């Protein structure tokens, strides 16, 4: 077969040429002998994709052999490269040739090099690793005396160049800005533009040279520099206001025809240049009257000069209109621009019509009357056969929607929606419809039906905010309670009808919305009983096409309805069915339902009707479990240890070096469970904190089904503020507007011939319904849409931005509360199991400790053991570790300072702050280095004192700290000392800032110095830093504490047993204050509030409560890992003392 193909191929060229007399003679001549020609012809002759693939693979393998053969000349290589490009264009992989493309660019003569560079620019992308190999070639060619070579290098640099290699070519390209040839200067400017795009800070220093390029005598160079200016002005328009005059002058010259005729395009002077300048002016004049005034004249001239004879003048006009509407308004210009828009809209050319609509959409917010002028055209465009025109029209209508025309506009949008298939269009349109429906819905039925359409079509691709907002709207209601109930009832009824339809599949999101609404509001029904609703939900549950996420929503709804149904076989059946489900999540829900079902009274109190928005008091500390815990402890159970502590113990058992900060890897599983979107409860039950299972676990339990209603950050504050704006807008008297519209229509009617077709009348009718309420007398409204009526669905005022987060959590709690008790029922098992586990671990840890304590007693620890030391967490070790960090009150600190042998070298400020003992960290025969810490308010100050023990002078002693991942170390003045005299002491100060939390870290560095005899030496040292070095008291009021408490999402709870000496709360808190530097805000009865901050400013709050000899600690912070670390430190302190 392949033989035949090949034979046919050889015969083809002749045939082909005969059949294609249109082929240019030159082209045919050039390709006749080339192998690319035969390849192309071969492919053209083939009929099936399969044959093509076969042929190309054949071609590629022969190319592969050729390019890698040593005998292949560069000329052949050039030819191969062209064929490779061709194969790649057809979609086949030719990556084996990339390296050869680079080689060709490097070694070839001019023509070969050109193909090599082209292949490189087509094959590779900016971050391709092979591109680095091109850098040398580019550098060489940039320095070439041959202009063509320089041009090629600049061309390739402007297209792809590795960002990190920019410094290698930057000076060369900068030089080219002064080159005598304009083509080189132009390409250099564009190369710099490319650099500005990919690495703006690298070219910052040449901004002044850009100005030179702007003033270049060559138009091409000047035009090229405008690309850079447009980009820079887009980023920061205020920095270039001084150039406005220059841009205006240039535009004047261009418009006035002062440029060489070369730059004319269809006798229009330099249109590209004009458009670029107009865009720049638009950006500069935005919201700036003085700058705008400079450009009024030239804009006026541009509008005047652009005579409508060619597409390109329309392009300029369009840009002009855009600029006129962007800058500070001038009525004369606006008037002219509006006329221009009219020309576009009314043009028979479809491209211009489209742009007219686009321009209308843009200006409609400033000038709604313009839409009125063109209403008939807009109506025609609505039924345009081209969907793009339709879509642009809908975009325009979307912007003029108000309460009066909303039904018509939304109907048009829905019609379009049903025809579209492209996901991007659907997502976009569905969002707009939902927004309009929520804002302007005329009545309940319309609102629910519209939203049903949105959910059915938008389904699973739409933005999750849409169902979330919808449910929130239903749940929170509006000012009128009976109205709310009607809306809810209507929703319930409409969903039941939808569910009754046979063989209709709804998107999962829609089913979730339905199940929530049915679960919450079915009680409003008077005909159907809850049992009937449950039966419908059950049918869905048994449907295989329903996703497991939706099923959890459904089962939650059933659970809510169960207490309302007196007795239901369906529930029994459901329990029976799902308690053996393979889906663990479903099984758990079924078990919860089963247990609740056994106690109907409890269930009723747990799941009250219509309380989804009400606050619920929850004993978050689960004090009712204390007795149970105490009993367990008295029976010899080991005290509970949180997950991270167990993890650490496990790690230390493995005796592996652990350089990672603790807790980071696992904090996401157990402790931030509240945030994880689908925290499956079984997992977190085991890893979580059993003493707090009540609140947290149930939250994560129900997250699966419920939390999604509100999205991650609670309700979007954006929406709230919008509502605020709208309600603030003044209602405009509607009758007068109606009159206006009527007048407009009647005028039209009169002017037109009486024999009006029926169709046209319909259009007029549509127009009157669409453009109703567009205030013709309303002044230019810069703020946005003019909302003419107050909205039906105005949110209750209680939902304020600040409160939204809070409400969310309350929601979650309420919705999920029903499962909290059932969880308690299971508690026994979990708890016993975990106790058992812990007992084992406790033993292991203990033996390990003793082992390590032994090693500690050795005087010199090998490095490895030092590391394992810090990775261990036992209190005893901490005490032994030569790191006495915590110091009771300042008086003692001061005395320590005096005692210190190095007191003389302390700087002034040292005495003001608490600091640690000076401690020798390293020494040799010449010097001894000791260090101490000063806990300043804003940072940790490390002081290293270097004592010269020898009798000789030391020169240029210098201290350097190795960079560490978790710290930022800043040198304080006086760190390099020229001379250290014999037997004296010098100190170095470094301030240390923490970058991310850790338990303990090592800060190391070295000290280097010169002896008198110029022999230099170096001495390494390291110091342990603890998290507590960076903790400072946070002095806030109880009120602020309350506010902060609610705003923090990360929390950790733990019960700690107190030792005898601290049995009372005040003494326990005092310990925390002294050792951890926490600030005691208030003590109320058996509860205490404390606060601290991790430098520089991460707050952490602590709530303590005492029962018998147990201290319940509850941390909250804005940082997810900080509570874990602090808890760990607290435990150490409490258990250690």
């Amino acid at each position, binding site marked *: 077969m392949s033989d035949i193909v090949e034979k046919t191929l050889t015969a083809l060229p002749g045939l082909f040429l005969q059949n*294609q007399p*249109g*082929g*240019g003679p*030159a*082209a*045919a*001549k*050039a390709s006749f002998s*080339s192998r690319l*020609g035969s390849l*192309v012809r071969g492919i053209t002759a083939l009929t099936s994709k399969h044959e093509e693939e076969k042929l190309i693979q054949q071609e590629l393998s022969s190319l592969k052999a050729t390019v890698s053969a040593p005998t292949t000349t560069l000329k052949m290589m050039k030819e191969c490269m*062209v064929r490779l490009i*061709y194969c790649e*264009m*057809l979609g086949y992989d030719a990556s084996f040739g990339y390296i050869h493309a680079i080689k060709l660019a490097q070694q070839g003569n*001019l*023509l070969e090099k*050109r*193909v090599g560079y*082209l292949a490189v620019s*087509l094959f590779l992308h*900016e971050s391709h690793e092979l591109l680095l190999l091109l850098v040398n070639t580019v550098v060489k060619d940039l320095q070439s005396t041959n202009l*063509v070579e320089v*041009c090629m290098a600049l*061309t390739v640099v*402007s*297209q792809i160049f590795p960002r990190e290699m920019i410094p290698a070519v930057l000076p060369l390209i900068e030089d080219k800005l002064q080159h005598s040839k304009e083509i080189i200067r*132009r*390409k250099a400017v*564009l190369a710099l*533009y490319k650099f500005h*795009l990919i690495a703006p800070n690298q070219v910052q220093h040449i901004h002044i040279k850009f100005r030179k390029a702007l003033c270049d005598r060559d138009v*091409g160079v000047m*035009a*090229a520099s405008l*690309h850079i200016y447009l980009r820079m002005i887009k980023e920061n328009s205020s920095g270039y206001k001084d150039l406005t005059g220059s841009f205006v002058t240039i535009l004047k010259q261009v418009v006035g025809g002062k440029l*060489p005729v*070369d*730059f004319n*395009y269809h006798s229009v002077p330099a*249109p*590209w*240049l004009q*458009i670029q300048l107009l865009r720049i002016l638009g950006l500069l004049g935005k919201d700036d009257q003085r700058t705008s005034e400079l450009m009024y004249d030239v804009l006026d001239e541009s509008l005047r000069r652009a005579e409508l004879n060619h597409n*390109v003048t*329309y*392009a300029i006009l*369009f*840009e002009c209109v855009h600029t006129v509407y962007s800058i500070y308004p001038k009525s004369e210009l606006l008037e002219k621009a509006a006329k221009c828009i009219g020309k576009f809209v009314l043009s028979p050319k*479809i*491209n211009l019509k*489209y*742009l007219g609509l686009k321009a209308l959409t843009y200006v409609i917010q400033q000038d709604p009357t313009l839409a009125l002028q063109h209403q008939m055209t807009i109506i025609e465009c609505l039924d345009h*056969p*081209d969907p*793009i025109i339709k*879509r*642009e029209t809908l975009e325009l209508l979307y912007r003029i929607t108000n309460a009066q025309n909303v039904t018509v506009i939304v109907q048009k949008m829905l019609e379009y929606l049903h025809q579209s298939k492209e996901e*991007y269009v659907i997502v976009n349109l569905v969002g707009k419809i939902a927004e309009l429906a929520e804002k302007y819905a005329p009545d309940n039925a319309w609102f629910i039906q519209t939203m049903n359409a949105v959910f059915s079509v938008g389904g699973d691709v739409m933005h999750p905010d849409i169902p979330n907002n919808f449910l929130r709207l239903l749940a929170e209601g509006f000012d009128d309670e009976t109205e709310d109930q009607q809306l809810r009832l209507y929703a319930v009824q409409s969903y039941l009808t939808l569910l009754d339809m046979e063989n209709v599949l709804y998107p999962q999101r829609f089913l979730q919305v339905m199940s929530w609404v049915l679960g919450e509001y079915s009680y409003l029904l008077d005909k159907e009983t809850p049992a009937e609703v449950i039966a419908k939900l059950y049918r869905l549950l048994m449907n295989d096409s329903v996703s497991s996420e939706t099923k959890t929503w459904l089962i939650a709804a059933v659970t809510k309805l169960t207490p309302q149904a007196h007795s239901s076989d369906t529930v029994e059946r459901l329990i029976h069915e799902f308690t053996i489900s393979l889906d663990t999540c479903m099984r758990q829900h079924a078990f919860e339902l089963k247990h609740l079902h056994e106690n109907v009274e409890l269930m009723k109190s747990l799941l009250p009707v219509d309380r989804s928005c009400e606050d619920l008091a929850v004993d978050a500390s689960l004090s009712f479990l204390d007795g149970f815990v105490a009993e367990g402890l008295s029976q010899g159970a080991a005290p509970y240890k949180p997950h991270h502590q167990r993890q650490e113990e496990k790690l230390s058992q493995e005796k592996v070096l652990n350089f990672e900060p603790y807790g980071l890897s696992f904090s996401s599983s157990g402790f931030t469970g509240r945030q994880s979107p689908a925290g499956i409860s079984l997992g977190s039950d085991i890893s979580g904190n059993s003493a707090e299972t009540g609140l947290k676990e149930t939250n994560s339990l129900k997250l699966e089904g419920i939390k999604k209603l509100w999205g991650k950050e609670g309700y979007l504050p954006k929406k709230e503020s919008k509502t605020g704006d709208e309600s603030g807008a003044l209602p405009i008297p509607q009758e007068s507007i109606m009159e206006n519209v009527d007048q407009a229509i009647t005028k039209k009617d009169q002017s037109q011939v009486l024999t009006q077709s029926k169709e046209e009348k319909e259009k007029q009718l549509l127009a009157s319904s669409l453009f109703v309420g567009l205030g013709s007398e309303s002044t230019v409204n810069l703020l946005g849409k003019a909302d003419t009526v107050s909205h039906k669905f105005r949110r209750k005022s209680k939902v304020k931005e600040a409160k939204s987060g809070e409400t969310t959590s309350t929601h979650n709690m309420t919705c999920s509360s029903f499962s909290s008790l059932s969880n308690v029922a299971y508690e026994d098992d979990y708890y016993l199991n975990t106790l058992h586990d812990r007992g084992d671990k406790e033993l292991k840890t203990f033996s390990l400790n003793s082992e390590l304590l032994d090693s500690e007693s050795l005087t010199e620890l090998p490095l490895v053991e030092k590391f394992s030391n810090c990775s261990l967490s036992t209190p005893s070790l901490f005490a032994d570790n030569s790191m006495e960090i915590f110091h009771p009150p300042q008086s003692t600190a001061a005395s320590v300072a005096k005692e210190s042998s190095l007191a003389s070298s302390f700087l002034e400020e040292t005495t003001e702050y608490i600091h640690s003992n000076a401690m020798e960290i390293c020494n040799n025969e010449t010097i001894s280095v000791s260090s101490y810490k000063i806990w300043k308010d804003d940072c940790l100050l490390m002081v290293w004192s270097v004592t010269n023990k020898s009798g000789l002078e030391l020169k240029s002693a210098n201290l350097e700290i190795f960079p560490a991942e978790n710290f930022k170390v800043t040198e304080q003045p006086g760190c390099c000392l020229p001379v250290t005299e014999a037997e004296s002491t010098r100190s170095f100060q470094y301030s240390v800032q923490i970058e991310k939390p850790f338990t303990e870290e090592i800060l190391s560095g070295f000290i280097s110095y010169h002896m008198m005899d110029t022999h230099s030496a170096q001495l390494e040292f390291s110091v342990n830093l603890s998290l507590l070095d960076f903790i400072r008291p946070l002095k806030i009021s109880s009120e602020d504490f309350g506010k902060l408490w609610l705003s923090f999402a990360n929390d950790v709870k733990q019960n700690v047993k107190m030792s005898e000496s601290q049995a009372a709360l005040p003494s326990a808190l005092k310990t925390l204050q002294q050792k951890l530097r926490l600030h005691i805000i208030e003590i109320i009865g058996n509860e205490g509030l404390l606060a601290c901050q991790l430098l520089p400013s991460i707050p952490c709050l602590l709530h303590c409560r005492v029962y018998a000899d147990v201290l319940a600690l509850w941390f909250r912070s804005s940082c997810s890992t900080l509570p874990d670390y602090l808890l760990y430190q607290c435990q150490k302190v409490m258990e250690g003392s």
Partner: protein
Amino acid sequence: MQFMLLFSRQGKLRLQKWYVPLSDKEKKKITRELVQTVLARKPKMCSFLEWRDLKIVYKRYASLYFCCAIEDQDNELITLEIIHRYVELLDKYFGSVCELDIIFNFEKAYFILDEFLLGGEVQETSKKNVLKAIEQADLLQEPWMHSVLRE
């Protein structure tokens, strides 16, 4: 400009130039979808398309479609003129250009494009200057091409 594609009425790609870094897979996907969408449009329809978050500007010359992707704030009409200017340049260079010239000499078509557009921006709008630059680089070999150019 984000990219430029040239393809035939049969949907065969003739030239592709990408000014934004994309993976090969994405490029193929975009090309496939776009070729389909554009070919499905009727001749009287508008030359602009909203496609994903891009604006597509396309124009058909004989059997060849020229298709550019621009950003939302870019000017559609001037992009049409960019396409037209490119066709003019090709026409001048090849001498009444047809699809075959581009198929068999696509590397030349790329060279011309690179002299006209660089990094997605218009580099040189003067027809004379663009062709002068190409001519310079073409020198030394292929003398037959000169005769075409001198006409």
